[in-house]
């Protein structure tokens, strides 16, 4: 190697390079993924599970799922692809654990927040209504500003803590709390306008 490259202590591969490694069935694909995204994936699981060991298990499951899905898949946005798998794994693990006891995780408190603004769960013979509700929610989220949308996804999809969202956006926790409250109030009004009972 020439002199310029000696300055680099560790090479962070691009997503495309990592995906290429998966396609070539090289095991260093996993370590490259872990180097690049391990920490961020971990936060997703931690918000849901609040347990270090469970999170690491989830992380390993996620790498395994990734290894098993690439190939044939070639995710266009690798980080989103990983995040989704991680979130699903974490929620599965949560379901197993939460069957026996309540886990005081960030996910529980974030979901609880939504009590005030989401309709009741439809009964089993009204399952078709879930699709309706989902369409309505998507329409509402699409209409949010970028920042509101980001806060909403972080808080309710990734169950990020308010402090974490404040840090990411470099704003105060009070601001995040206030904006979340606004989003929820508007959501409630929106649902009610659409004819749902809260």
């Amino acid at each position, binding site marked *: 190697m020439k002199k310029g490259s000696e300055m680099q202590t560790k090479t*962070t591969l691009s997503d495309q390079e990592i995906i290429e490694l998966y396609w070539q069935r090289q095991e260093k694909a996993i370590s490259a993924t872990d180097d690049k995204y391990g920490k*961020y994936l971990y936060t997703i699981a931690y918000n849901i599970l609040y347990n270090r060991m469970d999170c690491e298990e989830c992380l390993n499951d996620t790498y395994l799922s990734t290894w098993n899905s690439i190939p044939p898949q070639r995710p266009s*946005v690798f980080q989103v692809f990983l995040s989704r798998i991680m979130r699903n794994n974490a929620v599965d693990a949560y379901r197993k654990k939460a069957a026996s006891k309540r886990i005081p995780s960030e996910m529980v408190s974030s979901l609880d927040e939504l009590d005030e603004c989401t309709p009741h769960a439809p009964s089993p013979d009204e399952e078709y209504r879930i699709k309706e509700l989902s369409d309505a929610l998507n329409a509402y989220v699409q209409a949010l500003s970028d920042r509101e949308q980001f806060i909403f996804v972080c808080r309710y999809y990734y169950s990020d803590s308010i402090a974490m969202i404040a840090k990411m956006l470099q704003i105060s926790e009070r601001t995040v709390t206030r904006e979340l409250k606004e989003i929820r109030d508007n959501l409630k009004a929106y649902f009610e306008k659409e004819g749902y009972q809260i």
Partner: protein
Amino acid sequence: MSKKHEFKFDLLSSLQDDVIDKNTRKRIKLLMALEKRPNRKPLWITLGSVAAVLALFIGLFALFTKQVPIYTGMTVSRTAPVSASALPSADGDDTVQFLTLSQRFAHAPSNPHHGGDFSGDHSGKQDDIDQSDPFKKGEGDAIEEEIRDSLSVVGGAKSIYYANPNETVYITVHIENPDDFEILSFTLNGVKYASYMFEPGSDLENLILKVDIGEVEGIQQYTIDAIKYVDGTAIKDVRMDGDRTVCIGVSTDKQPTVTVEDEVIGFNDISFSVTCQDPLNLISLSSGKLFAVLYDGETLLKTVELTLDKKNKVTIEGLATNSLYQYAIVASYDALDGTGHNPYTLAQKAFCTKAIVLFDGVSIASESLSFALHWDAEFKKQSLTDLSLYLGNEKVRDLDVDATTVTDLQSDTDYTLVASYKNGVKTETITLQFHTAKKVTPEIGFTSPAKTQTSIGFEIVENDPDAVGVLTKLELLLGSAVVQDASLDTRSFDGLLSDNLYTVRLTYIYDLNDGTGAHTVVKTVQIKTEAKTAPTVSITQTNVTQTGFSFDLSMTDPDAIGSFTKLELLLGEVVVNEASVEARAFDGLLSDNVYTVRATYVYDLNDGKGIHTKTIDLMVHTIAKTAPTVSLRETDLSQTDLAFDYSMTDPDAIGSILRFDLRDATGAVIASNLPTEELRFTDLSAASEYTVVAVYSYDLNDGEGIHEKEATLRVVTDAQVSIQSAIVHTKQIFPNESVTVQLALYSPHNVTFTGVTINGVSTSLKNMGNFYLAQFVPSVQSGVFAVEIDSLQYTVLGAEKTEGIAYETGETVMVFGELEVESVTLSNGRNYAYAEESVTGLITFRGSEAYTVKSIGIYLDEERYPLTKVNDTQYAFEPLFHNSPYPITSVTYAIGDSEKTLALEDVSFQFYRYGSMYQTEISTPQQLMSMDPNGSYILTRDIDMAGISWTPYAFNGFLDGNGYKIKNLVLTGSMFTKANGILANVTLDNVSYGVYIANLTEYHLFDLISQEAYGTYINCVANAEMNIHIDTINMPSSYSDIRLFIVSASNFTYNGTVHVTISQVKNSCNDDIIKISLEGDYNGSLTAVKKQVSWSDYIWEEHLSTVMNGNGLS
């Protein structure tokens, strides 16, 4: 997860992909940035309150005097900058490194050596120049060192950031932004980049952008424009102070090269043409330059700058004749390899200026040199003035100026030949350094070593092409001592010791005439004579008896050097026999003793160690003789006499009986017999203990002498015993029952009575104090027998004895044999009788011939029916009641006055008495449909009910089918509303039974004959197809299941298929089970069909009772 959470979770999971994608990317970017962002908080904390107040003032001040952001420049890095505010350092350190490209030029081959070596002023001199190190400086490239020193100051060119093709680089835009305005976007090479596209690590003063460099090699330029920021609500342009353009080099193999041609070398000058090829214009784009330089090994004599775009003609003059120089073409530029701007040698060559005269045709041998002179044609006075030979710095010979050979030289030696000539008035010299060839060092050595047990052989091989050596000595050594100084042509030595290591040594002297004098070589070879093999001896036992043994003794001796010298026989450590070495057996020995055969043998291995003496032992155990044994047995024993016999087991016939002694209980000998006398002792006391002792002796021939032993037989003489009386307590028994006998027994001696044998049957005695009781099971199975006592068993002094008595008790015992009931019937031969008919019961026995059967017991013997004898095996009784079964539980029978009652099992009798013999005859369907409910009827022909509607009614009378059939009956429910009378011999043929129930709310029973059928049925059959259709089953949930009972009355056999169809089941009961029972006598199958309800909702169970032949559910 709670249902509430699950629902919300699912709802959130249904968020659209683009929303999740966009925000996930943003989230990861922000999280990455968060990790890299320096945490400024602690700084503020340490500043303390004073600083906080100060900051407040500064903040207020800044509020009113905000500074416009200023663009200060761009930097490029391969990785995202760790701290965006830190400028990437220059690529590498500032030292300009000289990178050699000299490997592009092939090195000139070194001068080929012809036996010897030479160098200096000879005609092949130009070719001899070592292009890699022409000035013999040893290390490095002298001209390149020099160029680096001279040209590093030329500089002035820019170092360019470089990257590999298709690599991603990071361009950091630096902005002075003290008031932290939000930067919105900028334009780079015409493409607009917004803030969300900035890489993690970007902040308000450093905007990091990831750029894919593409695959075009060479230098690319990036120009920034229109950096926008937000001031309050207005979007404004950043002030552009810095250099707007940044260059990025893409590394490439297409480096500049030069072509050097038209080279002309003169006595005092050189000229050549240079053309530069630089496809990517690296030299000009990096502001570099191209030079031609000339070097004399010490300094750069000349530097000529060349143009890049055309052929340059270079001429350098003023050089010395016959002198070594080097020229090089050097470019200074950025090669885009990450090392920045450097000088590179693109071409270089060393050369010699032309000479007036040179040595030519040089040829060197080991002791001579020949040569010629090659004069430049333009030079006029082609003659030498002096020719000398030097060894080192010392002149060793003056040679004739016309000489072309030098002889008598030492081999392998450096010489110098110096020739002088006149160039005008100047005397010039040329020199030739040469090295004479080396003479070949001779080689000598041993080959082909050979050996026997007493000799060795070898060959000597010599390789001496220059004949400089001679063999001077040949010696034989054993250890370090010389045992023979042999002639030089000796090639073998004989009469040697075996298994010894000998050394052959030669001395060889040679002289190479190279000034180092004579050399002596000593070579040796070590050869070991073969060893002789020590003989091995084996000795094995071949046979052994009680008094001797034989053996094999053999020696394996391939070199015939051994022999046996002694053969001895030892008992323990004592030699008992010294035999001839030929002996192979010993006899007359003791039995059961261990002997040792010891053979001694000697041999000489001829190895200088003398004669070896060895022994070998064989241990032999002679077979032992067997001690005889004697056993005694009594042949006759009474109260006073003892006769006995003996047997002796003596396989080796070494024993003899000495005498027989009789000892009393104290051990005193009271009589003796010799073996020749009658073996009997007389006049003994009754019930007393005696011992017979046989004394015998034998000799085992084992050295232990004669043994005397005893064998003993303990006897107890018989006691006096007798029976005083016997009473038989049991007089009547069934076969295999026991008889009890009471006995009074007497003995004057101290005996214990243990058993008795009565009528051939042995049994134990139970001591009851004054008398004994014995129980025995006689073998007699029937009839009378007299009780006789055969013998008594008792013990006296521990001996068990039997005394034959033959005592007749005068009493008899009666044995009642087996009696079985074979059948119970009615005297009319039927199993029923009419009301007016007079009948008796008839009971037939098996085994009743010997007895008079008196009565039978009915119902647990509550009543006894007297029997009237019909014949030996048949007895009559008056049946008392009917229509119910008679269990006959016992029978009483007698012989003479003795009678016994035998319990019976499984004997039952039942008959029916019904109706009047005077029945109304039925021959039409109408008659059948209108029978008197209590009347008595008989069919006189088959009744065909086809097409006739049947109306159920109650019938409690008597109907005799009389072998005829009721055919084609169609029923929509049971045939009768009640059927509590008697149906006999009724056959219903081809009955069609169809029941429909709209709403079934409880367990239901279906019967062909009657829902209430408590009558008596004899020999009745229905061949019917039953169809049961239930529209809705609607059972209360309190029912655990749903049951349908399809029944036939006892003795009313149904043949046919039952179809059950259920349309729907509502309000399922607890278990969701439908049970369909066929109860009664069925020959047929059941099919069950349920419609409109999924089968899997219910478990179908067939519940079968009594007989059901056929298929199960389908």
